[in-house]
């Protein structure tokens, strides 16, 4: 009886966590009024994707894909998702950097970070 439930949830534990994290990130992105919190939501969203990728490459009992000296054959984890995620992290950092500098510039210009106040500010100006 437990078999299908186990198969459904626990066997795919990592994918479930990725999906949950992603939804939390998206929720923060959409629902939060404060712009900085939106960016934090964006980061959570991207972290979820990284988790999804890394868990893709996981091999049971595999070690980190580092080149060991001759003679030692070890079961390596699939290195490709790790490399892809390295680039994705770079992208995530630069997008967050641009976002933050935009928020700084918006704050300088309108003096307010909250979206509701921003809308009034725009209407007033």
């Amino acid at each position, binding site marked *: 009886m437990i078999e299908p439930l186990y198969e459904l949830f626990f066997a795919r534990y990592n994918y479930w966590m990725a999906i949950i994290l992603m939804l939390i990130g998206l929720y923060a992105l959409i629902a939060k009024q404060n712009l900085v919190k939106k960016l934090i939501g964006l980061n959570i969203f991207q972290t979820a994707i990284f988790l999804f990728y890394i868990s893709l490459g996981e091999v049971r009992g595999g070690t*980190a894909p*580092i*080149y060991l000296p001759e003679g030692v054959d070890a079961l390596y984890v699939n290195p490709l998702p790790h490399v892809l995620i*390295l680039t994705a*992290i*770079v992208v995530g950092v630069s997008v967050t*950097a641009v976002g*933050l*500098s935009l928020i*700084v510039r918006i704050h*300088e210009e309108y003096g307010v970070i909250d979206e509701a106040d921003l809308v009034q500010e725009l209407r007033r100006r």
Partner: protein
Amino acid sequence: MRKNVIIKTISRLSVPFIQVFALYVIVHGALGAGGGFQGGVVFAASFILMIIAFGLTCVRQRFSYRWIVALSALGITIYATIGLLCLIPGGSYLGYGSIETALGVPHLHGYLIDAVEVGIGITVMATMTSIIYDMSDRGGESS
């Protein structure tokens, strides 16, 4: 951030070690875990620590904005020129094998990979620090 002696001394002690570790990570890109990007970020972390401890103006004197621009340009130029150099002996872009066979030096492509990693490390370090410079010098001095 009051002038806190404890933070200053600890950071003065630890910064060099952070930087050495960063170099270690950069250089070990080819074979082990690590590489240009991670090493560059760690190197930038050391600068961030200095900014927090000693304030932006002091760090800016040592590592001015002009240097940042020059270094970030330098890093990518290293990367691209090595890549383009491989074209000359007929290989494709970043095809180190062609240079190795052309010059006949064994393990040359290993050194080339390390050189590329160093280039990337320099660029990432410079860019990260410039991000922190932009962020922190807005609205009053983060002494």
